């Protein structure tokens, strides 16, 4: 029973990751692609929880939760920094007005 639940949660995590990849590939520009780091982080959390369910409290489960926590904290920081960098790259200055046409 425990392994069936772990496999189900793992499947949810993999589906979220694949959804993030499909979204990143299908979107038109870098800003739209950037939105799909959110589902990828949630997928990481699901995979970590499935490892915890499958192996119980152990070193590998602790490392999985630590990895998911790191991704949860670092992903928004990275998304903000990247969006700002792309804006500066496409418009010359991140404070440029919205009427400017971008390169990306």
């Amino acid at each position: 029973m425990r392994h069936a639940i772990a496999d189900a949660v793992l499947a949810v995590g993999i589906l979220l990751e694949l959804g993030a990849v499909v979204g990143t590939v299908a979107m038109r520009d870098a800003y739209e692609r950037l939105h799909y780091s959110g589902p990828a982080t949630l997928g990481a959390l699901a995979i970590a929880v499935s490892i915890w369910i499958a192996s119980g409290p152990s070193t590998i489960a602790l490392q999985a939760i630590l990895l998911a926590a790191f991704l949860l904290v670092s992903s928004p920081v990275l998304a903000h920094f990247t969006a700002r960098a792309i804006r500066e790259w496409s418009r010359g200055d991140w404070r440029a007005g919205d009427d400017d046409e971008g390169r990306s």
Partner: protein
Amino acid sequence: MNAFLIAAIVLAAAIVPLGWVAFRGTAGDGVVAVELAGVLASLALLAAAKGLERQPFASLALVLAVCSFAGSLVFARFLELGARR
């Protein structure tokens, strides 16, 4: 072959389309694709660690996640610096 090994293979295979985006798209698209590829590689290592019951691979996944975060910040910074030249 257990579910975690299959998951590791699927996650590793999912990096291929991101490589295509990085190769074909603009520099901004490439940075976004590389960031997501870093997350997928970390999770593939983690799933492989569980599937093979080899705990050191999980440590490798943690180190890769931190290095990938730092590397993505550097790529984004280069993108910004490239815009100023």
